[in-house]
């Protein structure tokens, strides 16, 4: 009986999963048909975009555009994650620090991040460093705010009990505080990854000399529209892969939190 219902549940899950891919297929087919009917040079068909993508992968696109972008993305994201978590823990744990920083942090995270690109251009010139700095300063906020809020909302009994049992300093942090706030940190990191990807592209369009953003924009300027679309497709896949890896790691690390995290909001 139980085995039967479990099998039914699995079948249903597989069915939903399959429907998801059917939905994607329908959308791609709609793109193909619309572009083929419209015949506009500005909207290539899905198949010709795929062909352009295939061509790009065979050329120097991967080493000279994709790899630099990935390196910038990873460095910027890791820097923002580390600083965000450390500062967030600090401001969340100490009320005084939080009170003093709230207004400044509120303002900084409300600032539309693309506005920082001109400043980074002045400070670091064209190129990779500028892109990394912009990514880090944009992606830090969701991590910092989530970590800080979660740490501030920790049950005092939890921390006090651990203290009474003799846990101090780094042990208290590693064994009690971090596990308790990690679901929120993960939620913040997941937002930060998509922020990083978005900012990467604009920064590279405005001031890159290589990278996917640079590629998309220079393809557009030289009227290689199909290549532009193929670049966007690459980003689409990158975002999807990053998001999937994230969900996978989150589920592995936070098994005990299942049901609380991973609800698709934000």
């Amino acid at each position, binding site marked *: 009986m139980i085995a039967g219902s479990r099998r039914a549940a699995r079948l249903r899950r597989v069915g939903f999963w399959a429907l998801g891919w059917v*939905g994607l297929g329908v959308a791609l087919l709609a793109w193909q048909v619309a572009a083929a009917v419209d015949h506009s040079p500005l909207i290539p068909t899905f198949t010709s975009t795929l062909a352009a993508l295939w061509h790009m992968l065979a050329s120097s696109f991967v080493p000279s555009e994709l790899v630099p972008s990935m390196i910038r993305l990873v460095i910027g994201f890791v820097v923002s994650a580390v600083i965000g978590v450390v500062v967030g823990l600090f401001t969340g744990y100490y009320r005084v620090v939080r009170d003093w920083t709230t207004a400044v942090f509120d303002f900084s995270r409300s600032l*539309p991040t*693309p506005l920082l690109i*001109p400043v980074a251009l002045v400070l670091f010139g064209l190129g990779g460093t500028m892109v990394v700095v912009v990514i880090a300063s944009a992606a830090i*906020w969701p991590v910092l705010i989530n970590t800080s809020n979660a740490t501030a909302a920790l049950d005092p009994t939890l921390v006090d009990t651990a203290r009474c049992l003799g846990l101090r300093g780094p042990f208290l942090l590693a064994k009690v505080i971090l596990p308790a706030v990690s679901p929120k940190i993960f939620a*913040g990191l997941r937002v930060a990854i998509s922020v990083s990807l978005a900012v990467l592209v*604009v920064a590279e369009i405005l001031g890159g000399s290589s990278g996917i953003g640079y590629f998309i924009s220079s393809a557009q300027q030289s009227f290689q529209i199909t290549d532009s679309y193929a670049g966007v497709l690459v980003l689409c*896949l990158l975002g999807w892969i990053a998001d999937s890896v994230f969900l996978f790691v989150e589920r592995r690390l936070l098994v005990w939190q299942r049901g609380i995290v991973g609800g698709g909001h934000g």
Partner: protein
Amino acid sequence: MVGGVAIAVGVWEVASITNVISSTALASVNATVAAIGAHAGALSSAAGQTLEAWAVGLMVATVAGVLLGTLVGRSRVADALTETLVRMMRPLPSLALIPIAILIAGLGLKMTAGLVAFTSFWPIFINTRYGVDQVESLLIETATTLGMRRVTLVRKVVLPAAAPLIASGFQVAVSLALSVTVAVELVGGTGGIGSYVLAAQQANAVANMYAGIVVGGIVGWMLNTVFAVLFRQLLPWAHRREGSQ
């Protein structure tokens, strides 16, 4: 609160006086404030232009996101059909579409607002879908048993129950939309705060550049605050979800 702001401003001033960051890259606090005063007209018309594109795009996204989110969230099959598509589109940095959008729609309000709408659609749609799907079936069954018709059910039961999640999706969209607006203005040079800041940078007018950034920050901060307060007033039944960015 005020102390923290004072310290931040102090650090900025010290950094510019001591030339830790060269004066070609950092304007002093005084110079920035003076620039805001001197260019108040240009800055406020730039902010107005930014807000216009922001508002039009966000409005379209809200209507489409809530409508489609409700339809999809109420149906199991539609939910499953859109799942993969949403997971591919959501992390797509729509800013990558700027070059293509410029080609298709030209430079102008239509293009900016269109991109803003496309980007802000996702958090609103996803949260509405999720919120509508999460409504307790007991609520719906009770309403149905009491003879409530479908449209009334959605209007009187489903949407109010999903409203807190929709609101938090909308709040994400508010700041996202502003970022996209500014990004398009930077890349396309279509006017507004983004173009103002870039033009100042290209003219080596550092104080003007910082003036534009400060005004952009104030606009963003005001929008976030206004909607946070508004939703707390409008949705007293929503227990605030802390940390939803």
